[in-house]
């Protein structure tokens, strides 16, 4: 499924959040089964499937990482699978970061410092993803998307 096509929007890394939300509500109103309760069983199933597709597309489009993944998949269908193996150096650093996150005491000064570092790592990955997309370097964008998962996981764990 191409979520951009479902929404009738030009594929892009950056989407206007308000425009996206407005479009989502518009599409939902048009195909939600509640507004077509009188339709026949076949039409109902069709609407149900359509509404499910709209919901799934919105779930992808509203999250910048998933949106970027969809964009990469659209332009280079194999890039994400091919670039799954990350460099040993990156993995070693990621492992070390995960250990630091696991050991840090919540609410401490160290935790705040770690948070700043993780935020910075995530911002760097995002910029690299955007640069890759802008240059049409889908392979590099895919690598950066895979790498960002480790940092996003670290952020998630820090927020616990």
């Amino acid at each position, binding site marked *: 499924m191409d979520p951009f096509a479902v929404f009738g929007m030009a594929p892009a890394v950056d989407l206007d959040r308000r425009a996206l*939300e407005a479009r989502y*509500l518009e599409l*939902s*109103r048009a195909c*939600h*089964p*509640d*507004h077509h*309760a*009188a339709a026949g069983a076949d039409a109902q199933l069709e609407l*149900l*499937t359509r*509404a*499910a*597709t709209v*919901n*799934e597309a*919105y*779930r992808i489009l509203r999250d910048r990482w998933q949106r970027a993944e969809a964009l990469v998949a659209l332009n280079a269908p194999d890039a994400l699978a091919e670039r799954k193996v990350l460099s040993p150096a990156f993995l070693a650093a990621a492992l070390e970061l995960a250990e630091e996150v696991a050991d840090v005491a919540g609410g401490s000064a160290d935790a705040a410092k770690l948070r700043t570092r993780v935020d910075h790592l995530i911002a760097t990955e995002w910029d690299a993803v955007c640069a890759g997309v802008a240059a049409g370097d889908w392979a590099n964008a895919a690598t950066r998307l895979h790498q960002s998962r480790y940092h996003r996981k670290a952020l998630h764990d820090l*927020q616990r």
Partner: protein
Amino acid sequence: MSAPANEPASERVVLGIDLGTTNSLAAVMGRKAPLVLRDADGEALVPSVVCFADDQIRVGREAKALALQHPEQTVYSIKRLIGRAGSELDADVASLPYQVERGERGLPRMQFHGKEWSPEAISALILQKVKAVAEASLGRSVRQAVVTVPAYFDDAQRQATKDAAALAGLECLRIVNEPTAASLAFGIDGNKDGTVLVYDLGGGTFDVSVLRIQDGVFRVLSTHGDTRLGGDDIDALIAARIATALAAKGADAQTKDPFVRQALRRAAENLKIELSTRAQATLHLDLGAHGNHTFAMTQGELDDLARPLIERSMASVRAALRDAELSPKDIDHVLLVGGSTRMPLVRKSLQDRMGQAPRADVDPDLAVALGAAIQADILAGGNRSLLLLDVIPLSLGIETMGGAMSKLILRNSTVPASKTEEFSTQVDSQTGVDINIYQGERELVADCRKLGAFKLSGIPPMPAGLPRVAVTFLVDADGLLTVRAIEQRTGQEATIRVVPSFGLSRDEVRRMMQDSITNAFTDMAAREHLETHNKAIAMVRGTQRALELADLPSDQTYSIRKASKRLEKALAEAVPIEDLKAAIEDLSQLTAQIADDVISSAVHKALAQEPPK
């Protein structure tokens, strides 16, 4: 008479029903706003209690009144058992004074009148009562409804509730989540756009939902909850405290005795309610053969007892906010729903957490039914400006290698939602694949709830791994799962047979529907009651109007007025149907004497205006 005010705006009436753990009620969309439907005494709440004593079936207030006399034959809190089975019932069953047995597949069953009863069938009796109250109030029969469930109810509990509606003779057009319904009641009048947190603490269940209201679209961002947390649990703690205190004084308060158990429970509930408005309350407890006792409690003591439970609800509030990626300051309105939110501790704890006072403009007992009526109106085609977008509360997945849970549809996904997954075979010429479906958040299926087993059959014989069966899991707007499978290479649709782990099988539902011939008798009696009731209302109205117009001798006016008053009284007192008929007959004889008179013509005119059935 309340009937004219309750006349629905559209021809087709769809009820909104709040089927609660403690109380149930119905509402319907009026011309502008939803209206709660009340019985002849003006009561909207029907206690969700069924009493089987004396070879009769009594539902609602009557049943609740008999609970102390017949603790073992009075069923309450049935909502805690619906859609559940096996060991997950143990804690609930242990605290109930009535007997619950394990039937087929470990499903809860009760024995009354020499018959086996499922939680669905008991719930159906409650729904029938609610339906009857609604029909009497509306003066017409009703066949369709929107029924609410806790947002945190899983697939099995939703399906069981839908089955209960079918058994009660109601087509359930939609299952709606209770907090979502409450938000509709709150936001219906517009200019409430913003982000809302609904805290719904009922008799047996707790939900919290975060929603965004925007241009008539009510979109749930996240939901969290506990289907085993409610006022019942607080009552149980108070009852245990009373029992301990009585034992300390040397009193024999055997909690094994069903009568004592029921009496303590009732006393605990009363104490809790009293402590919602007072700092201290004293209770006089008449335990019959076990003596008379007094027991005092302060609000502070109650708070200390209830605090751990309320803390659990606050953990859910935090989780819901986290899933919505919001913090308390992002919430524009905090709504309280459910009778248990009357406890000062609940209000204070929530205010502390949210940094704002909860809204007081929604009646916590009525909001859910009113919202259900609004959704009913949307489905009936009466309102296209509103739209509800709800979510699935728990992730849906399948069992993969090593008993791992592979999540297909994540929790808080907006419904309808669907996911297609490919399956293949492991052995040459294999024509069937077993798929186990689970719902829950844990990593291992052993820690999740098994919803059912699906057997994919009819796969064309091929070498192992070659068939590609695309299985589509679709969650509809009720939050219910359906599964379809298509073999990709041949385009052949594989058959799926669902064996649900909980609730009734489709065959059982069908059989029970056929069994409801016994219900047809009650239905007929109800219809006769309804028609007589309507006739009486129309006559009283018509007579009054006619007397104002007609110029009759004063003695005649007097006797007609007297007969009319008698009929009115008979209506208000809900006398037996025969007495009501007699009163109608008396009045109509008096008015019939004046042939061609304005009275009878006005009465007939009024009768002709009776709403269609």
